[in-house]
């Protein structure tokens, strides 16, 4: 295949990839190397920083989860006391959402969005660096709380109010000390970072596309990131405002959520879930985005129903703004309110259903290659269907009165967050690691990782539904021996440890392959989007000359001049 096929000039060309520079062979001392990473405004370096930062916190929060699971292994266990346990699950939730989920997805977005739309960087590189560092600062601040106050033994001043931090428990009267302050300020700071990143994505998406890339030729991943960014703008902001109110209450003696002065406990719940539910879509849409890229490549077929996929993603974004109160069916809304939020929540299943069936149709008639990214994507498809169905069950407001705040809910959202999002993050790591480092991840270790993860995941989270149906509420540090939950909890805990081993295999694989991995070349998967047209890892300027595209799959056109997409679009 030629580098400069007439009419489709792909800059740099695939064969130019032979001459590449690797970041870690850069001349200079370690100090200079570190300095270059700290001051970088390159979207690729920042993307990798985001991902590494998130992986570190993934290990930390995973460790917290294991401590939680040890504590729940026996009824009346006193492995950690209630004080520590409450801090552990609060930190686990907060970390996983704000310090793992968002950064890792922003990291991939940072890395991939400019490459996929043929840009040389994000629209505002310095804002990008600022966003990353303020998020990093937020993470460090949050974790400093462990050694604040009385220090590690009593787990310091770590927040202990659950990740949704319902008022008035967070008011001074019920939470003296600084636990809530750490939480609120850290979330506030990371929220500012997220808003900055979202603005950056939107500006990049709308202003930085290469020549020929019309809106309907943008790969699905940037489309979904644009939707996510819009959601971040309109939902993180209410959270930021609510945090500001909480801090006004705590420091200036305000009464927003002070029930003793006539304030309202429900208002916080509304404000939090106006953020909290769309936040799920902020996390899951990038996972969909990865699936949209990976499933077609390994099925060797174009994505089925591109336009419907775009419409469904944007539709999910909008519908998700009107469903927040399904977290509050037991809070005493009117029956009309309950009915409304039941219906609006169910509506989300229509666009998600379209997406699921379109993935199925993409696979249908393809020639499926079962490599590690695809394995994770297939597991994702199954798990996503289950997560969606339990989601419908939870949206049934009458049934939700029983299910709300039980382990069924915990199982459901872990099915979404782990079964869908984390699985797709793993798929994305296997898929794009060669692009980022120039080396392949080890396929054999990848399979070990995959199967252990699948077995562990299903042991843990399939089982976890049952204690919820048997009346086990969430966020309890221990339970009564007579409730028939013991065996179930033990299975859940064992599964948790299997998953931990799986993640450690991934970490080993990433480190090992960085030094010893097989050379990847620019296009190891025989893929079709622009990022595979340039060397791995890409040079700082990405594209030597600005690419020009004529279809959604420029590399397909390049490789199959006899059957180009551009002829059909």
């Amino acid at each position: 295949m030629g580098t400069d096929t007439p009419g489709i000039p792909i800059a740099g060309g695939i064969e130019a990839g032979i001459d590449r520079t690797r970041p870690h062979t850069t001349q200079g001392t370690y100090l200079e190397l570190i300095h270059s990473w700290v001051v970088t405004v390159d979207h690729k370096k920042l993307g990798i920083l985001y991902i590494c930062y998130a992986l570190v916190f993934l290990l930390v929060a995973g460790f917290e989860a294991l401590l939680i699971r040890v504590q729940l292994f026996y009824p009346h266990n006193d492995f950690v006391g209630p004080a520590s346990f409450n801090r552990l699950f609060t930190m686990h939730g907060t970390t996983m959402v704000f310090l793992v989920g968002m950064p890792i997805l922003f990291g991939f977005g940072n890395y991939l969005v400019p490459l996929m739309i043929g840009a040389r960087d994000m629209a505002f590189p310095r804002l990008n660096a600022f966003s990353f560092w303020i998020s990093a600062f937020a993470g460090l601040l949050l974790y400093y709380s462990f050694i604040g106050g009385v220090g590690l033994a009593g787990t310091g001043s770590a927040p202990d109010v659950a990740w949704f931090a319902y008022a008035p428990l967070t008011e001074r009267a019920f939470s003296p000390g600084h636990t809530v302050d750490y939480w609120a300020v850290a979330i506030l700071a990371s929220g500012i970072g997220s808003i900055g990143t979202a603005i950056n994505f939107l500006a990049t998406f709308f202003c930085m596309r290469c020549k020929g890339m019309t809106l309907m030729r943008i790969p699905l991943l940037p489309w979904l990131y644009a939707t996510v960014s819009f959601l971040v703008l309109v939902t993180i902001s209410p959270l930021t405002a609510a945090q500001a109110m909480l801090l006004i209450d705590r420091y200036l003696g305000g009464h927003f959520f002070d029930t003793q002065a006539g304030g309202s406990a429900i208002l916080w719940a509304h404000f939090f879930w106006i953020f909290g539910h769309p936040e799920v879509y902020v996390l899951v849409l990038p996972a969909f985005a990865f699936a949209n890229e990976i499933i077609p490549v390994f099925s060797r077929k174009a994505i089925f129903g591109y336009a419907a996929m775009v419409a469904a993603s944007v539709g999910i974004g909008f519908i998700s703004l009107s469903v927040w109160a399904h977290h509050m069916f037991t809070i005493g809304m009117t029956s009309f309110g309950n009915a409304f939020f039941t219906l609006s929540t169910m509506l989300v299943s229509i666009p998600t259903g379209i997406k699921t069936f379109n993935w199925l149709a993409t696979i249908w008639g393809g020639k499926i290659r079962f490599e590690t990214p695809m394995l994770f994507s297939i597991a994702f498809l199954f798990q996503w269907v289950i997560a969606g169905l339990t989601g419908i069950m939870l949206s049934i407001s009458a049934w939700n009165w029983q299910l709300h705040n039980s382990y069924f809910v915990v199982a459901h959202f872990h099915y979404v967050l782990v079964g869908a999002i984390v699985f797709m993050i793993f798929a994305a790591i296997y898929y794009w690691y060669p692009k980022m480092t120039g080396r392949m991840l080890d396929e054999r270790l990848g399979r070990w990782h995959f199967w252990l993860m699948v077995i562990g995941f299903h042991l843990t989270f399939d089982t976890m539904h049952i204690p919820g149906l048997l009346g086990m509420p969430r966020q309890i540090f221990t339970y009564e021996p007579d409730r028939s939950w013991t065996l179930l909890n033990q299975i859940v805990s064992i599964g948790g440890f299997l998953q931990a081993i799986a993640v450690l295999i991934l970490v080993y694989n990433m480190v090992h392959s960085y030094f010893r991995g097989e050379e990847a070349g620019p296009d190891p998967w025989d893929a079709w989007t622009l990022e595979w047209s340039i060397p791995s890892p890409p040079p700082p300027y990405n594209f030597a000359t600005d690419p020009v595209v004529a279809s959604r799959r420029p590399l397909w056109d390049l490789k199959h001049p006899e059957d180009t997409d551009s002829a059909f679009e």
Partner: protein
Amino acid sequence: MAGLIVAESAIFTIFVTAYLYYLGRDVTGPTPREVLEIPIFGTVCLLSSSGFIVLAERAIEHGKMAAFTLWWAVTMLLGAIFLADTANEWYKLIVHDHLTISTNLFGTCFYSLVGLHASHVIVGLIMMLVVLLFALGRKVHPGHAERVKVLAMYWHFVDAVWVVVFTVVYIIGR
């Protein structure tokens, strides 16, 4: 900037919602009706400043730098008057009416909402001051029109928010 404005609008929406939600739910006084006076003068100043900034934008587009500096300064002056008016109002509320942020729900919501807006005015004034200093130092030229327009967009936003805040606090709220 459009993105930032969307985000900011969401923040203001939340504070406005809280204000409306808590209207009349106070356990103790003073109530808005007892203490609030309609700040007509400040409002007129702020809203008219939006007009002057448009003049400034036109001037820089046409390369009339002196006119630009003048209109820019007038805009800032009006913004500053508005701010002084708000400060004066707060002084009266705190000293004469003993309404502080921790007095009651109304106090909390009022100072938060109006304070949030005032802080945006201050941010706007600081950014405009930087431009003004550059303009006085003859460092601003018509090539900067695009950036000036972005700043002007922010200022229009701050004014538009005041219309909402004014309606909520001084018309519905009383």
